[in-house]
């Protein structure tokens, strides 16, 4: 992926800083001073650029390949992760991973999209675009969560459900619809975090939850800005305008009351501080779970239903 255009001044500065550091001993007073000056300039630039990212720029940040992915979160915030595979009907889907794990003392069911981070793993995970098997695995995991009274955490990061012949033949629509229904019938608390890209039906299938949070620069939309532009503007070149019109940023969606909170990213985006991002996400999940515990399953389901029934009324 080419560098994000708007980050170029930052990258240039960062390049200079690295160069200076490598060039000579930082004990040299003049160089140390220059380094300090550049570093402060660089962080000021980061603040100013990242505090006013346009929706189109957020789309780029949300899709940045260096952002922490599902597997990073599993490593960073869970212990005893025990991946569970297969939908018990047809196959396993590596685009949507899940399993049992321990999160800060609690047993949880964790699931989410994995995009992969190099050519080989991207192909293995189908770029995070799940097939019906993925959504049927999610259903199975949610049933198990109900059975054992274990909360569910879902991490959403997908351009959308996979648009392929095999996916259609095996009922992509039905799998997504049933997965939404499974979320709604889940007898334990469910927390979803949009960690990168929340793409349409492929996202909502595992993000119909009691609490839905978004990372500060994540996006969540009914259609990709490119797709929207090619339909409504009849040209994908208008994607930047579509990104504005769709109101797909965390800030817009919180204003529209369609999400429950925003998780701050480190300065300069999640790709500049993976560990810190994972820590912030984990803290928010813990807070959400704390608010929902203890739970009465029937009341929890009722509240979740009411939450979604009200969407669009106000």
């Amino acid at each position, binding site marked *: 992926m080419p560098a994000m255009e708007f980050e170029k001044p930052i990258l240039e500065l960062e390049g200079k800083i690295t160069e200076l550091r490598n060039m000579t001993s930082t004990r040299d007073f003049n160089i140390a001073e220059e380094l300090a000056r550049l570093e402060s300039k660089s962080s000021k630039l980061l603040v100013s650029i990242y505090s006013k990212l346009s929706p189109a720029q957020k789309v780029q940040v949300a899709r940045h390949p260096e952002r922490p992915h599902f597997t990073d979160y599993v490593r960073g915030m869970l212990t005893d992760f025990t991946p569970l595979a297969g939908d018990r009907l047809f196959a396993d889907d590596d685009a949507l991973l899940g399993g049992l794990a321990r999160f800060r003392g609690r047993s949880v069911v964790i699931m989410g999209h994995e995009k992969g981070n190099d050519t080989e793993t991207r192909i293995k995970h189908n770029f995070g675009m799940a097939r019906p098997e993925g959504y049927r695995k999610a259903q199975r995991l949610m049933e198990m969560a109900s059975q054992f009274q274990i909360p569910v955490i879902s991490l959403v990061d997908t351009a959308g*459900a996979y*648009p*392929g*012949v095999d*996916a*259609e*033949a*095996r*009922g*992509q*629509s*039905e799998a*997504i*619809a*049933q997965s*939404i*229904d499974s*979320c*709604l*019938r889940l007898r334990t608390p469910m927390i979803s975090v949009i960690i990168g890209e929340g793409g*349409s*039906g492929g*996202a*909502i*299938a595992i993000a*119909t939850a009691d609490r839905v949070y978004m990372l500060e620069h994540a996006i*969540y*939309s*009914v*259609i990709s800005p490119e797709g*929207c532009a090619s*339909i*409504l*503007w009849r040209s994908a070149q*208008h994607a930047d*305008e*579509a990104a504005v*019109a*769709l*109101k*797909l940023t965390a800030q817009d*969606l919180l204003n*529209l009351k*369609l999400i429950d909170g925003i998780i701050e990213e480190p300065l300069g985006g999640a790709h500049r501080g993976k560990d810190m991002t994972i820590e912030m996400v984990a803290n928010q999940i813990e807070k959400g779970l704390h608010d929902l515990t203890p739970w009465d399953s029937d009341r929890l389901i009722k509240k979740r*239903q009411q939450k*979604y*029934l009200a*969407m*669009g*009324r*106000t």
Partner: protein
Amino acid sequence: MSNWLSDFIRPKIRSIVGAKDVPDNLWEKCPSCEAMLYAKDLAENLHVCHQCGHHLKFSVHDRLNLLFDDGAWANVPVPTVPFDPLKFKDKKKYADRIKESQAKTNEKDAIIVAEGKINGLATIIAAFNFDFMGGSMGTAVGEGIVRAAEIAIQKRASLIVIPSSGGARMQEGLLSLMQMPRTTVAVRMVKDAGLPYIVLLTNPTTGGVSASFAMLGDIHIAEPGAMIGFAGKRVIEETIREKLPDDFQTAEYLKEHGMVDMVVARKDLKETLGRILDLLMRRNIKAA
């Protein structure tokens, strides 16, 4: 196909679907076999081609007249939702698109909720109007499904939803995506109340509509040839860089792949629905 209307029922159907109002000299070309069809004959044949059986577009009102006993039904008012919540504008303002569609269809939005009887049994139908922005689902359509579910439960009636939709109404952004769980809650309430929820899939049913309430029926019936699927054919062709066969995502294809219970010709829909509702709602009839 051509002679299914006996002389006995023809006058009744004619009066119900309004064929009598169609001028004699209009004709239409069948999109499938290209036969020239007189509009009047077409209306009498429920907009099904005499030559090849292709099911052409059928208006919501004609359909409701066809399905409800004696063509008698009442409109169920759907509460108004906030107008153009995102103030969306592409080349054109969404607000203007809505107003144009309202003028064109004489309807508030892309869904009509109706109550009446089928086979003597109280039934609520929520039917999509494809002419209203491609039957796309925004908050107003979501509201229609919720209202239909609520009134079905209140009246102990069956719920039939008839989608004909390109998917989510993207001009409402994420709010339109949220209509997927919202309508899923609605049909779940009907199921929890022990009432039948039947989906009659008509051309086309795709995207967010097919991936929510439309695939959650107790029973799925599809009209012959209807396109039903998640992703659009063009999107798939672009992804896999291959041309797809003609029958891909048709009602018949979905039946073959286990996603619908039956493909039923338009002329048989009323009888089929009536029989199913009878079996599900009149569960204990003493043999005569």
